[in-house]
């Protein structure tokens, strides 16, 4: 693909991410922060998020296994952190799943929690893939996501 086409593709992938609710405005703001001194800033942030959040996901998983003696307080804490983290780069769906989970937590709804957690993991993984593709395209196109 030639450069122009790549750029188009980048733009369209980007747009769909927003349209489908995977990302919100925070992502744009991050891209605004990006500059020549740090051209892959956004990508770095996302990478950092995924490595950090893996830890949380694992912790949550461990805590969930202990059912029925689930420590809801702890779960809530983990989710709170995850929510904060995902909001840092605009991971909208992931963030929403976290909120959902927390609601089930406060209601002590174990089943609800399990379900919410499944969905969370799914969204988490999906977004990761999509962003990886996106960043790759961006590199190929030689431009930053935003024009």
């Amino acid at each position, binding site marked *: 693909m030639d450069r122009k086409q790549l750029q188009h593709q980048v733009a369209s992938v980007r747009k769909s991410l927003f349209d489908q609710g995977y990302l919100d405005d*925070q992502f744009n*703001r*991050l891209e605004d*922060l990006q500059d020549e001194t*740090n051209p892959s*800033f956004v990508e*770095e*942030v996302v990478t*950092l*998020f995924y490595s*950090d959040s893996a830890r949380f996901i694992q912790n949550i998983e461990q805590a969930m296994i202990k059912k029925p003696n689930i420590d809801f307080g702890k779960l809530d*804490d983990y989710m*709170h*952190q995850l*929510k*904060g*983290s995902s*909001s*840092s*780069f*605009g991971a909208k769906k992931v963030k929403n799943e976290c909120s959902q989970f927390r609601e089930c937590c406060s209601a002590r709804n174990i089943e609800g929690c399990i379900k919410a957690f499944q969905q969370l993991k799914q969204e988490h993984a999906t977004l990761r893939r999509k962003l990886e593709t996106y960043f790759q395209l961006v590199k190929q196109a030689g431009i930053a996501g935003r024009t």
Partner: protein
Amino acid sequence: MMENNGFSSPRNDSFPAGLRVLVVDDDPTWLKILEKMLKKCSYEVTTCGLARDALNLLRERKGGYDIVISDVYMPDMDGFKLLELVGLEMDLPVIMMSVDGETSRVMKGVQHGACDYLLKPIRMKELRNIWQHVFRKKIHEVRDIEILEGNESFQMTRNGSDQYEDGHVLCGEDLTSINKRKHFESKHDEKDTGDSISTKKARVVWSVDLHQKFVKAVNQIGFDTTSLPSFDGAMTGSVCLAEVGPKKILDMMNVPWLTRENVASHLQKYRLYLSRLQKENDFKNPAGGIKQSDSPLRDSAGSFGSQNSINLQHNDVSNGSYIFSGSSLVVHNGDPRSHDSDRKRLVSTPVEEPKRTLTVNVPNPRIPRSSQMEFGQPLAPPQSEVDFGALDSTFPTKYPWCGIQLKKEHNPLHLNDEFSHLPLPGQKQLTQADYPQPAPAISSAPSSTPSHNEYRSNVNHARSTAIAVDSSPIQTKTDVANHQAVEPNSKSTPSLENQGFNMNSITEFESSRKNINLGMLPFTTLEEDLQVCWVPGDCYMNLGLQNIEVLEYFDPGLITDVPVNLNDGLRFDYEFYDPTEYSLIDQSLFIA
């Protein structure tokens, strides 16, 4: 950090560019983003993933940061706790942030002293504005200092009639400050950002009583926790006020209508006050050591101490208004209370009042050593020591101790019991007649009565030295100096270490104890009045000084009488407070 008055910080002139921000957040993603954002604002950023690390950094580089931004949730320490500590120890503006925007959380943040609460995700524009908190604090600091400094003069004039204006006993609020405060408030005084809420509400008047309770609680806590490890493990040594939490203090004070935030803000001021005193003391105290507490007082800019002037108004003395401005007062040697080390002392350093030390000038040898009161710059009484709280109102009445060292009957300072730990040279020293400067040694021993009056004269208005020398015969120690500080010493020699005292003993003294050394106030203008400006509201020293004749010469006769009570009490545990907060207590002590 903020330097006093204005922005003399290392920042460059293009403020707010170069603002030194410390960001604390356990989330690495946010840390990275915030760093980038702050850099875009041209701020100097330092990031920390752990609260503990942040505290260490702040402590190591005192004055190295202008503002702290911290997340509420952190694994190793509650963000609110960090907030409190930073406010107490470093008195820096702190901004809290969280993804949780619940009103209750935000409220909690503000209650704990946050100057702002940001919701994540944070926008650039919000960060661009954080410099206002730094600026605001500076302004307030300057104001406080001015007030402190102004107290003295105001005090003198105002003393008396207006004292009880507003129906407030001037407890804790010196006239000046009241007036000023009114003025400020009318101008929409926003006081501390952290306390803005409380400020906006009805302002709490920290009466002497209240303040005494406060100090007592603080000392108590410090006492109890002296041996406790600081909660973050990092605080060691002196009990810092930081270890003493407002909540604990509040609980101990048991004042139903008082809120935690009232206490927190008062505590901050107190700290600030003490640290200023300490600085001054350090600076100034040649002879006596004022014991400084090892607590890491931040050095507040501003010469707090300078103000200290002990102005005893002569006439007013009777009403006991004395203002201790600034640092002076303190003296608490050997804090009786504090048995142990000065724990927390915040103020430990005797104010170095360069100018005048309290002094009762006792140049004449007649003055019995014991009677000499040295009043050095008021040392910031260590918390424990200072018993401002102890100063009971009753205290004032009696003794004009200007300098405080009341020694019990002859004992030069005896700091015996209490002061045993203090090497108070005072004992010997106090009395020192050899004290070159006219230190009003109020020795208990010496003629208590008439001398008291004269004492007053001694009380020069060295500024800060708090001296309450009341002309009235010093009554038993119990009352006088008892104000807190005093009492512990039964020995009563108020160990005023004053700088002026050249007692060498002082040196010992100082070293040994954190007590407060009251510098001897030189009586310069005794005749007019000993003005003891005592800032902290608690001290009521009735300075009975009525004309201080003592001025230049310290008339031992005068002193002698006094001391008796002084001794014991003379521990000035004055707390030096921000004059704005504490008005002088006008006591009838003064001997006019």
